[in-house]
């Protein structure tokens, strides 16, 4: 049996959370996030879409994932989950033009992870697992923790601030 790795190969980043209550352009927000994934060269997919109607309001849950291959050995994953409550459609003048907007509460969670050896090259035998642990802990530790993890966290923070700017939140 291949032993458990001593060095964590799925390096999860801390979650970034945004909660907003009020009026917002949801279609615009959705398009902005999808465009951001494409701009940053992520392979983007929408994996969850739930819509519940509890009259007079509606609830929605949307999940999107973006994956980017950094090298053939390392992969970045960013997961965005949006939950909407007390949703109601309204028409209002937004930035000089009439638009369909939503009023309600929204919660956006941004999760990310750096996956090392995502193609499982080093998981073939006990020997390769020991070699991999040595490689991670003594040779590329600094690259993992000070380059790849920082790069991914910077990307997550960039998306986080873009969302805050889009929602025109006070503290941004």
């Amino acid at each position, binding site marked *: 049996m291949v032993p458990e790795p*001593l060095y964590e190969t799925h390096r999860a980043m*801390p*979650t*970034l*959370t*945004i*909660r*907003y*209550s*009020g*009026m917002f352009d949801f279609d615009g927000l959705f398009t902005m996030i999808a465009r951001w994934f494409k701009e940053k060269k992520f392979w983007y997919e929408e994996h969850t879409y739930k819509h519940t109607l509890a009259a007079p309001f509606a609830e929605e849950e949307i999940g999107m994932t973006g994956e980017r291959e950094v090298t053939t050995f390392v992969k970045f994953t960013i997961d965005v989950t949006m939950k909407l409550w007390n949703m109601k459609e309204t028409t209002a003048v937004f930035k000089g033009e009439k638009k369909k907007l939503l009023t309600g509460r929204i919660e956006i969670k941004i999760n990310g992870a750096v996956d090392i050896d995502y193609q499982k090259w080093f998981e073939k035998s006990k020997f390769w697992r020991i070699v991999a642990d040595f490689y991670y802990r003594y040779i590329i530790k600094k690259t993992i923790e000070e380059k790849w993890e920082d790069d991914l*966290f910077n990307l997550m*923070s960039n998306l*986080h601030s873009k969302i*805050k700017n889009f*929602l025109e*939140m*006070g*503290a*941004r």
Partner: protein
Amino acid sequence: MPERTLIVDHLTLTYSGLFDLNAFYRYLMEWFSTNHFVPYEARNEELTTKNGKDIIIELLPYKKYTDHFKGIMKIEINFVGIKPVEVEKHETKVKLNKGFVKIVIDGYLETEYEKYWERRATLFFFKLLFDKLFFKRYTLMYENAIKQDVYKLYDALQHFFNLYK
């Protein structure tokens, strides 16, 4: 779970009056980068109410002192009833915010955040033994470091809100 020790407990600052919300946020982020803290914003909540905007921000900035010691701050900022106002300053109109602010800062020292010595009970016991007996000097040194950082931030915030009077 890495061991986390509370060093500074609930250092509180309150302010009510005029301030620039965006400038405050920028000032805080700048302080983190100049003091080598990673600015991790765990939560940013905004509620629009009849009395203005209520904003809650939870920040967990951290600084890795060594591979064994990590300093963490927990900053909870509550803005209540924030309203935009226009004020005349040196004959020019400036957009500011008016409201109530409460900032609570906690300081923690986390040891062994890589969890390497926590795989087995015996290893954890030796880690504790070394932390409490042999490396006590270092533990105290980094406890002081996070304490200093927390008070430095507190001073900077007081300076921002012009509370030195």
